């Protein structure tokens, strides 16, 4: 079965054996939610930490806080139960290294913090993460067992 590709500021939920992929996470964060019992998985590719800072709210998948909420709804529709859902996250890198201390460029770090806060608020436990640093990541979320494969350009591959 073909993988679902989740683009930037997008999200999708599905059920095994279909897997979820997102390509080229930089400062964006890939949030992978999983219900082991029903093998329902969800992936959100968020760009920004906080929807209340935004002036466009049409796309809820863009922000850490709103994306998790929508993703939980989508997964529930497929039979997942919130109390069983766990999370793994990847991304949140700082791609550009400015010589000055440019706070606005630390968006990756801010994204990761916002995702963790929202997961905590929703009572979802974070099982594993591969975040930060300064390189891009492509991730594949395997809905058969909830494992998350991470590929990079020249920083190797891993599964969390």
């Amino acid at each position: 079965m073909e993988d679902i590709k989740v683009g930037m500021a997008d999200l999708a939920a599905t059920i095994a054996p279909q897997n979820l992929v997102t390509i080229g996470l930089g400062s964006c964060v890939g949030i992978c939610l999983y219900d082991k019992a029903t093998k329902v998985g969800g992936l959100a590719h968020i760009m920004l930490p906080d929807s209340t800072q935004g002036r466009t709210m049409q796309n809820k998948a863009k922000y850490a806080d709103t994306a998790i909420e929508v993703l939980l709804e989508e997964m529930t529709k497929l039979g997942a139960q919130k109390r069983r859902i766990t999370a793994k996250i990847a991304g949140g890198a700082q791609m550009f290294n400015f010589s000055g201390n440019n706070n606005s460029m630390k968006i990756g770090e801010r994204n990761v913090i916002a995702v963790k806060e929202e997961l905590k608020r929703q009572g979802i436990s974070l099982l594993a993460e591969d975040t930060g640093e300064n390189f891009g990541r492509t991730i594949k979320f395997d809905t058969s067992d909830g494992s998350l494969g991470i590929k990079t350009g020249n920083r190797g591959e891993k599964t969390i």
Partner: protein
Amino acid sequence: MNFENINDLHKDVLREIGNIGAGNAATSLSAILNKKVNMDVPEISVLPFNKVVDIMGGADNYVAGCFLEISGEAPMSLLFVIPKESINLFITVLLGLPPMEDNQELDEMSISALKEITNILAGSYLTALNGFTQIVFDTSVPAFAYDMAGAILGNALYLLGNVSDSALVIKSLFKEEDKEVDSHLFLLPEPGTLEAIFEKLGVSV
């Protein structure tokens, strides 16, 4: 103003500014590199974020990206991108430097050359824009990354992400004699910036 509301007149104005900017850039590059460099008439388009990455060859395509922020009355950011296939052509033909081996990291010399080119491009466009509008622009030092297009773009788009789901793209093509080097210049205006520019030009928004 939303980029979705940009009409043909606005595009003509941006293209004309782009033309003069590209002309300035080609002149500066020719002088610095001591060879004849031409640039095509830029293409102006407004694209949703997901489509922007497609014209860079897809989210997993490796690209060299230089990013700088422009502050002042009309804040925006600028991203100059060269797809992997064109990097060697760019380095060897335009800069006269040795080619990058496959998958190797770019060396310091090429990186600082690319940053300098980005400075020149930014300067050329902003000089053109200043000539039309008298708006003064302050630019940051460019930052460099060589990685997946999606990763680079996601980072560069975050300011715009809060206010828009699409970006204004000025696509530029360098030419040296018969060799074409594909590159993309993204001007990413912040909210209010286009209004400020069009207002100075007497173009209604």
